[in-house]
Every structure is written in structure tokens, then in C-alpha cells.
């Protein structure tokens, strides 16, 4: 009989190593909207100044030292198939401004910019106007240690516009670094001369870098290896559409963006999204829909015809007319596509619209965050373009 002599030191060391790997897995498990991070994601920005709609972005450096940031706007406007200058909503049936016979082509256009934030510096801008110069530079006064902030933020590429913003902390060489110093908030405002003002705000979603894991001088960001992994599923607690809540009727819109994004080749990623719905009777329903790059949908539009025309919203599994209870819990999962080298993780934010007194009444909105469960087994990848020809 063959015997194996255990080396106690080695076996202890191996277990330590195994445990450390386990720890690394655990540490990657928490994308959060309440902790500073290396990547901040603002899933929904809206601009429509003619109708009094704009988004305020707040971005803050929480570190006691200056930080450099690269940011990427994604303009997810649709345009008419026969008129690329005409902006339309791919989520609506082909109506004006698209002419007869035309349809609304979804689009994704990326615009990037770079910033330097000084010690603990907060900045604010509107997406429509941007920020031509950061505060210290604009005032021509240095911060602590004689350091100036730097960079400028472009105005939105179109007006109206809908889309997202991702910002990544980088080093002086503009390559990503493993520091977690950024936090952010977005506030969508709708104002009118009536006068009325409706605001909804949410925290940017933070993806933390794993200290020591970020490959130096590399523009490929691997979520699940260098950064925290995206959640395996998102959990949405919501009112079913058309539910009466106090004196209002409520509808909910869900904004989803992919964790993976290729800002270099600008190739959008398509993901099939599975929805598993529970009502207050513990009854279970499910549906699915595919999304590419950016999706904003009223819940009742997920499993029915888009838009308001013959939409059959009342028979949606997200509608109180089907569910019979006021609230539900929906588990949202991006289906992994083995042919996709990048992952199919999702992030998002929820917008709730309360129409006071029913149809025709004023609408007030609020935003809140999706819950997250687990981590993706497949890594997600954010590919940055070179910051300069030298890269």
C-alpha cells in the first residue's frame, strides 16, 4: 500500500492560498451606489431643454489627493431611417418626426472627456450645457498645494438626448488605476413656466477596483477580475403599473445598461433579459426581452407592444390588471451568451411616476436603486479607447 506523507506547512499554506482565493471572490461581490469607487455609472441621463428637461450631474473626489478621470457619454438616441437628423424614440411606434414608411433606428454614439479633480473636490454640471472650465481653473485660483483642476465637459451631443455616463478613475498616464475615490449623483429635473418643478435623483453606481489587481497601462477593464463583478441578477421591488397609491396612479420605468462596453470599437452588446415576477400572493410569472446598449422601458411595455397605441398594457404581467396586487418583486437577469467575449451583466435604475388624480393629472417622479444579488460567473469587459496616440 502506498502512503503519502503530508507536509503540514505546505498543506497549511495551500489552505491559506485557497482561502485567499475565496476571499478575493467575496471581495468582488459588492457593486454599490453608496461607496466611493473607481468606476461610476450614471445609467440614465435625459436632456430636452425645449420641454424644460435636463440632468444635473454631481461628481466628487473623496480622496485627499487629486485624481484624474476619463468619462464616456453614450448618446442612445434613435434616428429616423430616412432622416438621420430627426431624433426619435426606438421605444415608440414609427410616428412623426419619422415620415411615412420610415422607422426609428436605435443608435449609440460615444463622446469622451477627461478631468482632473483636486483634493476632495466636488463639481456639478448640466448635461445640456456641460462645463467649459472646472471651478478652480475658471476662477484662476489654485487649490491646496497650488494644484489646479483641469479639463472641460462638453455639452450633450444632441438635444433632446437620452443615454448614460460612465467615468473611470485613471492615473497621470490616463490608464486605469486601482483607486476607489469617485462618487456621484444624478438629478433629472423637469421644469415649466407654469411654474412647476419635478426632480428625481439617484446615486451613481460604483464599481470598485480590487487593490493590486488592475493591470498597469492597460485600457481593458475586466469586471470580476480587476474590478468587482457585476451582479448575477438585479432585484426590482415595484408597484405594478396602474396601481392606485394614495391619490395617484403609479407607473414604473426601468433603465438598463450593460456592464460591458466597448468604447474603442463602438460595437454595442445585445443581451437577452429574463424577468421573473412575484406578486403579493407569491404567484410567479416570467417574460423576457432583448436589449442592446441601452434600454428604458415602462414595465408594462416589457411584454406588450411598445408605446401607447394599442399597447395592451392592461394584460401585461407587470400591470395590476393582471396581477391583482399593488406591489411585486421582479428578478432581472441578463442571459449569458457564450459567443459574446464580453459579459452580459446589467446595471440599472428605476423611475416611478405618480399621476395625481388619474389621467390628465400632474405627474411627479422619483428614482431609486435596484437591489443586486450574487456575482456574474462570466467576466464583463469595459474597453477604453487610447487616451492619446502614444497609447
Amino acid at each position: 500500500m502506498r502512503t503519502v506523507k503530508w507536509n503540514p506547512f505546505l498543506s497549511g499554506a495551500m489552505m491559506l492560498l485557497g482561502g485567499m482565493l475565496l476571499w478575493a471572490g467575496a471581495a468582488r461581490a459588492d457593486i454599490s451606489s453608496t461607496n466611493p469607487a473607481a468606476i461610476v455609472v450614471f445609467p440614465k441621463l435625459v436632456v430636452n431643454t425645449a420641454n424644460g428637461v435636463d440632468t444635473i450631474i454631481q461628481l466628487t473626489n473623496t480622496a485627499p489627493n487629486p485624481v484624474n478621470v476619463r468619462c464616456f457619454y453614450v448618446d442612445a438616441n434613435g434616428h429616423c431611417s430616412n432622416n438621420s437628423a430627426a431624433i426619435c424614440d426606438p421605444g415608440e411606434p414609427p410616428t412623426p418626426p419619422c415620415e411615412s414608411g420610415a422607422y426609428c433606428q436605435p443608435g449609440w454614439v460615444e463622446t469622451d472627456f477627461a478631468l482632473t479633480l483636486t483634493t476632495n473636490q466636488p463639481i456639478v454640471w448640466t448635461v445640456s450645457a456641460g462645463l467649459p472650465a472646472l471651478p478652480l481653473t475658471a476662477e484662476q485660483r489654485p487649490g491646496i498645494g497650488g494644484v489646479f483642476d483641469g479639463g472641460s465637459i462638453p455639452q450633450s451631443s444632441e438635444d433632446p438626448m437620452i443615454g448614460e455616463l460612465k467615468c473611470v478613475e485613471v492615473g497621470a498616464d490616463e490608464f486605469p488605476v486601482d483607486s476607489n475615490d469617485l462618487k456621484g449623483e444624478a438629478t433629472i429635473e423637469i421644469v415649466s413656466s407654469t411654474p412647476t418643478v419635478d426632480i428625481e435623483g439617484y446615486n451613481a453606481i460604483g464599481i470598485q477596483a480590487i487593490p493590486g489587481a488592475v493591470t498597469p497601462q492597460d485600457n481593458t477593464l475586466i469586471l470580476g477580475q480587476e474590478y468587482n463583478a457585476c451582479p448575477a441578477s438585479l432585484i426590482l421591488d415595484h408597484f405594478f403599473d396602474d396601481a392606485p397609491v394614495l391619490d395617484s396612479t403609479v407607473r414604473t420605468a426601468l433603465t438598463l445598461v450593460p456592464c460591458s462596453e466597448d468604447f474603442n470599437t463602438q460595437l454595442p452588446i445585445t443581451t437577452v433579459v429574463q424577468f421573473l415576477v412575484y406578486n403579493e400572493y407569491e404567484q410567479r410569472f416570467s417574460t423576457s426581452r432583448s436589449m442592446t446598449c441601452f434600454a428604458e422601458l415602462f414595465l408594462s411595455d416589457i411584454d406588450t407592444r411598445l408605446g401607447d397605441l394599442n399597447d395592451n398594457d392592461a394584460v401585461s404581467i407587470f400591470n395590476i390588471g393582471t396581477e391583482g396586487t399593488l406591489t411585486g418583486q421582479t428578478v432581472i437577469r441578463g442571459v449569458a451568451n457564450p459567443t459574446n467575449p464580453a459579459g452580459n451583466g446589467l446595471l440599472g435604475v428605476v423611475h416611478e411616476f405618480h399621476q395625481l388624480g388619474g389621467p390628465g393629472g400632474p405627474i411627479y417622479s422619483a428614482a431609486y436603486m435596484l437591489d443586486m444579488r450574487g456575482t456574474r460567473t462570466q467576466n464583463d469587459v469595459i474597453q477604453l479607447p487610447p487616451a492619446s496616440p502614444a497609447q
Partner: protein
Amino acid sequence: MRTVKWNAFLSCLCGFAVVLGGVAISARADVTTETGASILIFPKVRADGIFDTVIQIANLSNNMVYAQCFYVNGTLQNTNTHLPCGVPSATCVPLCQETDFGIYLTKQQPTHWSVSTGRTFTPSPTFGSDTSGFAPGAVPPVGDFVGELKCIEVDDSGAPITRNDLKGEATLVSLATIDGTLSDQTVTGDVAKYNAIGIQGNPDVAPSNPLLLDGGATYNACPSELILNHFASGAPDIVVTELTASGILPPDTTSAEYTDLTLVPCTEDFENQIPKSVTVQFLIYNEFEEQYSTSTTVSCFLETELTNIGSGQIFGYGVLGTDVAQAIITPVAQTNGSSGGLVGIAERITTMTDGTTPTAGRAAYNLHSEGSYIPPNGQPDSITLPAEQ
């Protein structure tokens, strides 16, 4: 020479235990607003005739879940006259009165109630009515209430458990149009919503009463600092300013931003009804990196517009001089080393007028947080449940 024979199994176990200990601390080092938890905190709940609050709680597991919930009434009252008062001071303090109730949720069940009416058991609820769904138990109505709600996951005997099955949201709904001062402005129907703050428990331990927020051994600790990004109080709203300049809004349109901050101590003694007081320090940076500081004491519950904190008006636009600022909020230890963690939320209020008609909009945000707070005396935050729980 003496030799020691290593026990391979034991050395494995020790190595693993050391690392697991590290995991326990690092993986459970924070409160959360996005993952299931064993303790849910809704820092701001109003049912005072001006606002009502709709509470949503969901069971994330496939098991039956029980929770014991505690309303803490933080309505301000004068210590001499016992009449309601406005701004917190030495003689205007929160009532700090607790009311509790139990709820139970079947697998994956969501539920809801409005705080003013609670939720009663209806044997045969109408399809689509407010009481449709499995009744989560009797939730009492409360009136004239401004305060917090804490819910703690328990087993069917009422003993606390740490399975981290709960999540929640609160929707603050305005019931009246009020043209007040600072943040006391709202219009009927306006809504603001935030995620409940979750404190995760260590699923490998059976907690005992009081519940210890000890950094992960039993429950996660509260944060060592909260970070509030806010507009300078009284600063003009930049969207309104830009739309007025571009002619979309009338030229006489004016606006102002305010921030209503709510903080609650993590420590609660529901058995002895002893309110917890925590002194907090505010360190504020404006857009020019200029630094300011002030402090206040949170006793049981604090809800106030930022300019009511301290005496220097340092949250005001006139002092800060920039549209936004970053405030870092940290608990201060007393001379005996005692202190405590806090959690909270912020509500941003944008007011606007065309010269004759005032209006306002509100939005709620969860505060950012960093670190795990264990006071210098080593006594972690704790939640003491009534003895019969």
C-alpha cells in the same frame, strides 16, 4: 532539542480559519442599500398630514420570513410645555417613542403599507385593492408621526436571526401644498423615494439580545463616516438658471436649493426606551477645495435643513460660494470613549417661483458611507429588543 510534530489537519484548519476571519471582516464591513439584510432601517418616515409614506418590504428568500418592526417617533416637542416645536434645540427634542409590530412574508413575497393607515387583515380583499395579497400581519396606523422604522429579521419564536432576507424602499408622498421656508415647501402629489438601509448579519452565528453591530462577527457595523454631496443652501438651481437665460423660462423666474438631512443613531434600546445621543462632526469642502466644519448632536432622530446645523450658516450659498459641496459626517467620541454610528438619508428640495406662484420638487438620496465604526471604548453599536421579542 525538542521537536514539535505538526498536525496537518489542524494546520489546514488554522490557516483556513485565519483567512475566513479575514473574510468575515472584509466582506461584512459595511451597511448596504442594494443587497438583502437582517436589519432594515428606514431613517425618514412621515405621516403627519403633510406627508405620508408608503413602505415596501420584500422577502428575497424561498423561506418564510418573520420580522419585528419598530416605529420610533421623532416628532419634536418642547420639554417644558410638551407642545410640538420646530427646530431641534436643548428644549426642543424628539419624542423618541417606540411602537412595534410583527410581519411575516412567504417566499419571495413583497408587501406594502402606507404608514398613516397601516395594513389591516381583510379576509377577502378585492382584486387590485390596497389589501390584496397575503396579509403580512397587522400593521398599526400611526398619526402625527415623523421618525424612523427599523425592522429586524427574527424566527417564528421572535428570536433574531441573520439570514439577510429583507430589502425595502420608502416613498414619501406629499399630501398638501405648503409654501414654507427653507425645505418646508412642497406641492400635493410630489414623491421622493429611497432604498432602506440594510445591516447584514453573519449567517454563521445565532445572535442574542442585544444585537451587536460589531463589524461582522454578529452584524455589520455602522459606517465610520457618511458622505453627503449637497447643494449649498439657497443656491440657485442651475437648470432653472440655464433655462431662464435661454428664454425657455420667464426672466423673473427664481429658484433656490435646500437639503434636508435625516440622521438616526444605529444604537437603539427598545427595552428601556433610552434615546441614544451621538455628537457628529461635519467637514465640508466646496468646489474650490476650501474647508469648513461644524458639529451637532443627534439624539434619537434628527431631521433638519442643513442651515439649521451649527451656528455659522456654513452650509449656505453666501458662505460656501459654490453651487455644490461635499460634507463628511463622522461620529465624535466622548471623553470616556463612548460614541455610536449613524445612518441617514438626504432630501434635496428645489424651490422655484415666477414671482407670484411658488412651487417645489423633492428627491431623496441614500448617503454614501465608508468604513466600519467601532467606538474607541470598544463597545459596538447595539439594538436592544424588548425582552419578550
